[in-house]
């Protein structure tokens, strides 16, 4: 137990993202945490006396200096970088600015303030969905700068982090690559896929998919914070299931599209707001992108409580309840609030 570390003052970005909100809830309960400094443009939806909010725009040039000075002033020892998106968004250039430039500023600030611990919320989609992927992708799999723009942006972020790890070995960097997070409250792109009445799919492709339950994701994040272990970890749920099994579980009508026409159809539907699935996500419905969670199990000591199937099931069940008016309390509405509210999500303050 010599690995256990106590961080009293923590810095954090991306307070309104889905995972970070859940993490904030847990941090508010943890007695070892005294102060949480939040750097964001919107104040967090979770309230606690521990939280100190600093309005910082990560896309502006002053961000580095502002964050660094606050971190130095308050003796912050650990930092959670959570302002990374869970999938493609409608504002592409803003998406790139927040992820890529935001990471640049945060790394600058951490280097200046000499923070000892950095945790980054990444995702397994950095590996990209490609027919040449192995069935289980290890953490040391080489990231390729290819595919849709949200993957490229994330690869860029990971490259920056790699560079940072090389040049600043005194900072313990933990990169958590989460599988798509599903749970009663999730509104990310994979959850939206199972929410709409008609589920578009690619004719003849049925990849294996993998999810992680939101509770497991939060637990992994807290374990990473309290243990002094650095490295890259895939945080994934137990087991896998074919995508079509998921569709049949949700009980929605699958509509197959020819793979050649898929991109056109998906982008047309996205532009006209018929569905919330951009064409960039299509390869993830065609090819494998499954990560191996063994390293997290052996080194980090994290084992998922829920299997991929259970995570999906909990999401589908909560969704059915929501449709008939039983609102499942959710502290967060994710990245697209308008969409989440239209689906019956209610924010509980």
């Amino acid at each position, binding site marked *: 137990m010599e690995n256990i570390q106590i961080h009293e003052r923590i810095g954090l970005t991306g307070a309104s993202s889905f995972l970070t909100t859940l993490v904030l809830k847990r941090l508010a309960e943890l007695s070892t945490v005294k102060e949480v400094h939040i750097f964001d443009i919107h104040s967090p939806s979770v309230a606690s006396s521990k939280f100190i909010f600093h309005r910082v725009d990560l896309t502006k040039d002053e961000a580095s200096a502002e964050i660094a000075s606050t971190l130095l002033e308050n003796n912050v020892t650990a930092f959670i970088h959570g302002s990374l998106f869970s999938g493609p968004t409608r504002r592409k250039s803003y998406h790139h600015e927040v992820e890529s430039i935001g990471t640049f500023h945060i790394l600058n600030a951490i280097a200046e303030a000499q923070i000892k611990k950095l945790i980054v919320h990444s995702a397994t989609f950095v590996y990209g969905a490609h027919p040449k992927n192995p069935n289980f992708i290890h953490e040391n799999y080489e990231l390729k700068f290819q595919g849709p723009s949200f993957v490229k942006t994330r690869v860029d972020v990971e490259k920056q982090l790699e560079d940072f790890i090389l040049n600043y070995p005194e900072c313990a960097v933990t990169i958590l690559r989460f599988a798509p997070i599903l749970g009663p409250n999730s509104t990310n792109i994979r959850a939206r896929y199972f929410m709409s009445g008609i589920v578009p799919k690619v004719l*003849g492709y049925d990849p294996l998919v993998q999810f992680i339950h939101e509770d497991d994701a939060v637990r992994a994040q807290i374990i990473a914070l309290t243990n002094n272990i650095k490295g890259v970890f895939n945080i994934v749920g137990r087991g896998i299931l074919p995508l079509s099994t998921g569709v049949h579980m949700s009980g929605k009508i699958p509509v197959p599209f020819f793979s050649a026409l898929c991109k056109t159809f998906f982008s047309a539907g996205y532009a006209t707001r018929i569905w919330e699935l951009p064409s960039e996500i299509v390869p993830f419905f065609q090819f494998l992108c499954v990560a191996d969670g063994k390293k997290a199990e052996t080194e980090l000591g994290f084992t998922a409580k829920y299997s991929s199937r259970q995570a999906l099931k909990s999401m589908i069940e909560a969704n059915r309840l929501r449709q008939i008016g039983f609102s499942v309390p959710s502290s967060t509405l994710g990245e697209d609030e308008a969409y989440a509210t239209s689906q019956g999500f209610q924010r509980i303050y």
Partner: protein
Amino acid sequence: MSTSTAHKEKNKHLSANDSLQNFSNQVFNIRRMLIEQFSRIEKDLQNKFTDNQEKFATKEELQSVIGKMQEFRQEIEKTFTTSESNPLEPAADEFFTGLNPFNLRRKYHEFSLRLRSEEVDPFGYDPIFDKFVSPLLNFFYIKYWRVETYGISNIPSEGPALLVGNHSGGLPYDATMLKMAIQREHHMHRDLRFMVEDFLFHFPFLGSLMNRFGGVRASQDNAQQLLENNHPVIVFPEGVKGLGKLYRDKYHLARFGRGGFIRLCLRTRSPLIPVAFIGPEEIHPMIAKETSISRILGLPYTPITWTFPWLGPLGALPLPSKWSIHILPPIDFTNFGPGAEKDRVLVYKMSRMVKEQIQDTIVDKLKNRRSIWFG
């Protein structure tokens, strides 16, 4: 004789009823033992029957003995397995009973969920789907290609095994038939996993179909993980070069890669079993490769056979050649020290040896073959 042993076993169970765990273990062990013994006797008799070596009994008498044995076997299977019938027939009945436009969607989802397993294997293998397609594959195995398998006992009854074979025939028909052979004739009925070329995963249907059926994308990582999970795995070191063989090059093994399969064995210490397939090289007699138009379409080449582009999709049917699969004795890798996989000379020499062994077996068996279609 056999009934009395079965009764004894049953009595034993009744007395050892105190711990459930113990009991179920015992049942499992006894079941395995009985099945092993039965299949051994059965196979022995079958061999004697086909060779007609046994002079003390007539063919009819032997036939009746085999019939009796099969009856006993079924009885034992029935007593020791839980009531697990074919999942499809009752599902199909249920689908049509009480069907109306209002529950159509629910019935559809329930029916589709019944055709697949709760959770697939980490590599995508679905046992229920396997059961679903096995009638068709049985037809191919027994009636269409009339596969004869020799040396099935060379495959170990447990633990990993790397099978290496000669490749041909466009789609992995050869791997599928070997899988059927092991499932039908091996005494432990093991499930073989096979490596599928990358390019199949680019096409719709084929990739996911192969995946549910036990195929895994060909890569070192995947093969190693499968071997570490104690699966028998077949690899085709010829790869796409083997699939793209012209008819005039049939049974001439193409280059054997860079010895990746030897390195795999050295790393995982699993035995290597060479396999020679006779017959699959003639199912798609490719006389030429068309490249210029298929380049434009983004394909490496289009095969041209006697039938293929001319008869349309009908021409893509494989021809009914007579197959035989020869499984050779395993090569042991447990004696090599750590780091042996880094020895280039060793890897190269072992790879050459395996290739020559397969090639020699093929030549040897082709010597005795009179006809492509009737063996």
